[in-house]
């Protein structure tokens, strides 16, 4: 079975399939699925592949159940994952909050389509960016990666699993329909070249073990079923033992921890790709499928001597606020093409603090930007 989990070699597959392979290569052995366009193919691939590697696929009765099941599986001790799109992501939100509160590692792939509601089931959208960040009630830290190709669907799903194990929380792969349904070459490296973070085992004696640690910037080692540790897992505000304590003092410790473990480690988590930023006078900020178009526009402009640059977000959350704050002092403007009505543009505007103009190029969904449109927007400043 072992040789079937990492399919080392060159493949010609779509982004959805690559997400599934990224999960399996990361050691994911449980997938809870529910059909939804354009993410169904992730579940279908998992239904076929997991039995080949000794894993378990369950088709659940809805997305509420899918999210709950992967949290349960994670406490059972297995790396777990689900996939969905807009309406299903909405249904998952309460359980995503539970995963944040209980510090439960798992991965949620969201292949975004046009919303709200049923919206454009078969066509692209990028409008779940803020939902990923703020969708469940209460405060928590968020990690979301935005792949721009099937290759990155594989790579970033691996990264998402690693981050979820390191920071002990649900991590999002925020894909989009274009990337999910796009078929390209995907290279799966040899097993030894993959960096996989395995779940650590608690080192403490059983009588001293605390399943939660609110002091430091990192979470406690997670004990899972069968290791012999006494664990109490609750969505209620809890102390380091996991016992509910309904006081403002423990709420302070508990919630500051689940926010700060991301906030204080943001520099380690944030990943961007900088293209021609050093002397750029206008910077395009883009992510997902839109970043491919933006790259084309910026390269075209540079070939004509226009000092344009591209800041491509690999992690949308945590947001690279410091970098944008610095860039804002150097550039005339940020151009933000995105397939929503200004979700990342809002964040850029907030962090630019008035030092540079922010131009939103919004599409409501169903189509992608054209490079010449982005070029025109940039040229307004030259």
């Amino acid at each position, binding site marked *: 079975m072992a040789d079937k989990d990492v399919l080392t070699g060159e493949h010609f597959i779509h982004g959805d399939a690559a997400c599934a392979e990224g999960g399996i290569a990361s050691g994911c052995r449980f997938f809870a699925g*529910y*059909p939804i*366009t354009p993410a*169904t193919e992730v579940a*279908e691939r998992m*239904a076929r592949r997991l039995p080949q590697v000794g894993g378990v696929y369950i088709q659940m*009765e809805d997305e509420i159940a899918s999210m709950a099941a992967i949290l349960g599986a994670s406490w059972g001790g297995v790396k777990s994952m689900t996939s969905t799109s807009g*309406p299903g992501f909405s249904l998952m939100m309460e359980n995503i909050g539970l995963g944040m509160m209980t510090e439960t590692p798992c991965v949620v792939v969201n292949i975004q389509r046009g919303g709200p509601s049923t919206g454009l089931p078969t066509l692209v959208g990028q409008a779940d960016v803020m939902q990923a960040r703020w969708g469940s009630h209460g405060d928590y830290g968020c990690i979301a990666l935005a792949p721009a190709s099937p290759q990155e669907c594989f790579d970033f799903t691996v990264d998402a699993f690693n981050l979820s194990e390191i920071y002990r929380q649900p991590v999002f792969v925020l894909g989009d329909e274009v990337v999910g349904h796009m078929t390209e070459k995907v290279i799966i490296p040899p097993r030894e070249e993959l960096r996989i973070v395995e779940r650590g085992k608690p080192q403490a004696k059983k009588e001293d073990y605390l399943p939660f640690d609110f002091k430091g910037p990192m979470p406690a080692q997670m004990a899972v079923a069968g290791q012999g540790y006494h664990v109490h897992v609750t969505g209620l505000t809890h102390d380091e033992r996991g016992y509910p304590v309904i006081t403002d003092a423990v709420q302070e410790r508990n919630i500051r921890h689940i926010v700060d473990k991301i906030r204080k480690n943001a520099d380690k988590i944030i990943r961007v790709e900088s293209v021609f930023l050093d002397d750029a006078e206008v910077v395009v900020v883009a992510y997902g499928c839109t970043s491919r178009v933006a790259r084309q526009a910026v390269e075209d402009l540079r070939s004509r001597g226009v000092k344009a640059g591209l800041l491509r977000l690999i992690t949308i959350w945590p947001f690279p606020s410091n970098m944008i704050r610095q860039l804002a002092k150097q550039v005339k403007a940020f151009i933000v093409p995105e397939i929503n009505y200004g979700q990342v543009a809002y964040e850029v505007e907030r962090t630019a603090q008035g030092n540079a103009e922010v131009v939103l190029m919004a599409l409501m969904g169903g189509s992608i930007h054209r490079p010449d449109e982005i070029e025109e927007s940039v040229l307004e400043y030259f």
Partner: protein
Amino acid sequence: MATKAAKELPKEEFILPGTRSCAACGLMLTYRHSLKALDPGKTIVAVPASCMTVLHGVYPITPVKVICVNNPFAATGAAASGIVAGLKATGKAGYTVVAFAGDGGTYDIGIQSLSGALERGTDFMYVCYDNEGYMNTGTQRSSASPAGAVTTTTPILAKLQHKKDMLRIVEAHRIPYVATASPSFPLDLYDKVRKAKEIKGSRYIEVHAPCPPGWGFPNKDLIKMGKLAADTAVHVLYEIVDGKFRLTSRSLRLAEKGGKKTVADYVKGQTRFKKITEGQIQALQEFTDRRWYEFMERHQNGRS
């Protein structure tokens, strides 16, 4: 009075030519005959995201002449409850609120919403068109898929579990009308929808809706497949009015005259059963027989 011949059905069509449903869609025929039994001028249809949304179409192919409220997949029973409440609060009488949802939207994601509506005795009709899988997203298993069926999420071993007995769950709510129907028996279907329309309270009709692309049989065999389901008692036609059970149509004749065909006859014409084993066919036969004998017994008891 039972409708005796197709020519007695109303001539007016409420689904215009050119729908976006697949060729030989069991749901399409179900919907067509159901709307004839309703008064489409006084009917509000609640529809979740499903094959039904596809049937209702995308402009300019929007062929359905009925007022429709589209709702989330999980919410059909609740959405219909709201429409009923809205009509009541504004003093509008004479409307029939009819929910049309598939098996995924009824057996799985929608069961909570449906159960809530039935428990409250919501004055509406709920039609479940059961095509035994998530066909709109390309044939994934649902809890209505039969054991032995290959779907895209049961690709290796085929489905291991028997179909959920949704009708018993619905019946447990003690609503005034529960029925089953099939587009292959349009007069029976038409009469049941017409009867349900006149009843106050929650009414549930489950229609077995064969799906050529999902089940893997030729389009031309749609009607034949529905008939075969009845002849094998895989799908049994009956109604329960105020708790009183009776077989109807083909199932009634099957009970009276015998001649039940085997499950093997039913599965052999469908590629979804390509991996079914002899043991699974046997299990499916036993499952089907057990239900059939229970229904026959209930029918006898109902008559006595």
